[in-house]
């Protein structure tokens, strides 16, 4: 995260490869399922031996004996509809909810987040020197409409995507944040409105950030969890 600050995001998950290294982010949507982006995974039709999700810590590389850490192997990956760039990852056993681990809410189907809603992105990825990569960084980003966003991207932003405003100083997700959440406040709850996907450049001054609009795929998410 470029130009973020250390913060708390109990639904943000660190996805770990077979060597235990953090390589992408994810969001906990119930005790057994994490949402992330397809871009982080080589295929949806293979097993995930050795991959895991780490929850319950703000540190990218927590101490061995840090009591709150939960490391749960991933047992299944399900690809979303083709244009969604989303995947769902099943945890081998349920995550334990506490003050450091909680599930994020899912938006109503096809809900459009109003402009200027207060949102934030979170991750342990690259900060481009603007922050400490060893802790979870969070950045506040307000929503803008697709039409406004398309002025910058010349009409390339699609309806299953959404944007947040850019700041002159440049705020945004970067390398190894992908799959992480765009969480927006709705009364006193946080809702998963977007998923971070790779974009050209990170936190480029004046460039809006694009996310996959989760509300378009809530029916698929619920279907996978039910099936």
């Amino acid at each position, binding site marked *: 995260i470029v130009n973020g600050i250390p913060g708390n995001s109990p639904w943000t998950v660190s996805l770990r490869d077979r060597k235990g290294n953090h390589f992408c982010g994810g969001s906990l949507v119930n005790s057994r399922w994490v949402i992330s982006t397809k871009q982080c995974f080589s295929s949806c039709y293979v*097993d995930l031996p050795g991959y895991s999700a780490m929850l319950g810590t*703000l540190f990218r590389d927590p101490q061995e004996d840090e009591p709150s850490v939960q490391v749960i192997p991933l047992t299944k990956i399900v690809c979303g509809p083709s244009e969604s760039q989303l995947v769902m990852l099943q945890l081998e056993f349920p995550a334990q909810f506490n003050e450091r681990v909680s599930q994020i809410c899912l938006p109503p189907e096809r809900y459009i987040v109003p402009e200027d809603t207060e949102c934030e992105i979170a991750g342990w990825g690259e900060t481009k020197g603007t922050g400490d990569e060893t802790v979870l960084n969070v950045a506040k980003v307000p929503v803008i409409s697709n039409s406004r966003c398309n002025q910058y991207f010349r009409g390339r932003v699609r309806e299953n995507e959404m944007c947040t405003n850019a700041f002159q100083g440049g705020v945004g997700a970067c390398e190894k944040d992908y799959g992480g959440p765009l969480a927006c406040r709705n009364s006193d709850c946080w809702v998963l409105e977007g998923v971070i996907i790779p974009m050209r450049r990170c936190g480029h001054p004046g460039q809006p950030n694009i996310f996959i609009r989760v509300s378009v795929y809530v029916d698929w998410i619920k279907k996978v969890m039910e099936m």
Partner: protein
Amino acid sequence: YRSPLNDFQRSEGRELVPTSWNSNLVQMLPNLNLEECASRCSQSLDCRAFNYETRPTVSCKHLPWVADRSNAEVKRNVNCDLYEKKVYVRQCIVGKGEDYRGKVFTTKSGLTCQQWWSKFPHDHWWTPTASNGLELNYCRNPDGDNIGPWCYTTDPERRYESCNIPQCKDEVCITCNGEDYRGQVDHTASGKECQRWDQQHPHQHIYQPEKYPDKSLDDNYCRNPDASPVPWCYTTDPLVERENCNISKCPTVQVEKRQRSSFTTNCFRGRGEDYRGKINETLSGIPCQKWNAQYPHEHPFYPNIYECKGLEENYCRNPDGSEAPWCFTSVPEMRTALCLQIKRCADDIEAEDCYQENGKNYRGAVRKTRKGVTCQRWNVNTPHRTKINPLTHPEANLTENYCRNPDGDQHGPWCYTTDPKTEFDYCAIKQCAGEKVSLTEQIERVEFSECGKREDRIQSILR
């Protein structure tokens, strides 16, 4: 620190079942653990293989043969692993091959071998015993001859001849850095025996076979799970953790032919090992370091050693099986970066039909998923138990295994799949031209429960 299992080649989930007429030759040995079972078999001249069952009870069965159709057959049994003595299954030799126990019985020039027990046409003084392996007319090397396993021939004009059994290090050659090597070399270049990958002694390590199924970390054979320059193994010498193995390289022409067809340049498939495009900066716009440079980052990926990895210029590549193409960056503070801005190749198959709106009324005959997997019939429960079926949705025309949309899924017709790993998937059908997804605009108040709550006081957590 050598495990007796090092003498054996394991076949997981397999059992060697004798034919009815010789099942009495099987020797049951109760209450032995795996190493004891192997050790007893190693010491017994009658034992060439053993079945080791773990469920419902532990059992060790010693067998006087290895898998060949005449004596016994290999069957599937998830509760059992078959261990066969390497010398009886190996098609190659180590050193001079004195311990070769294969079944080749013709010489280098194609002559049939004379039976060892026979003195005709060539008289000799070798007599078969239970320990010298002079069985029937198989090639053997009882006297440690440098020509390797040999035999007396049935040609009166030719007394004996080598059988030309290949050295294991030449039997299977390696391309590039040998990460695809699946041969049977089990010693390092200096002659140290390899440690089994599924054991943690004498050396603890992270390369457990079940974690790296794609690396075929079988028994104690040389492999290359970490993109080293050549295949290697942990050794049974407690003082030497790991060493490279000496395996022949394939001629380069063969290598060239293999690679061209799978290259991609505009996108990448899987982990991107075959990506050969020209993206040469990280996603955040930092130029990549040239692969043939060691500054600002020193690294082991020399283009001439990894010649099949396409390490040209400073293009994003994946020489070590990472999650996607990557490169060393040109800034000292960031050693490597994934090039996730490169698109993944679409791996959906060609759509075979189209549907209106969300496809709820689709009644076509497509029965394949977007990945080309055949759909499961709606009225069966294997491999997936169906929650949605003709009984629950009689009006949805759930016939045979045609793609349908009984639950009005907004993303189109789907089906349960015959792939055990994929419960359901969308079909190889696209929306008919001109169809649009409609997004709702405003939803009044929405109530959330038991989600999205968090502790906003950050200090208490960071302490």
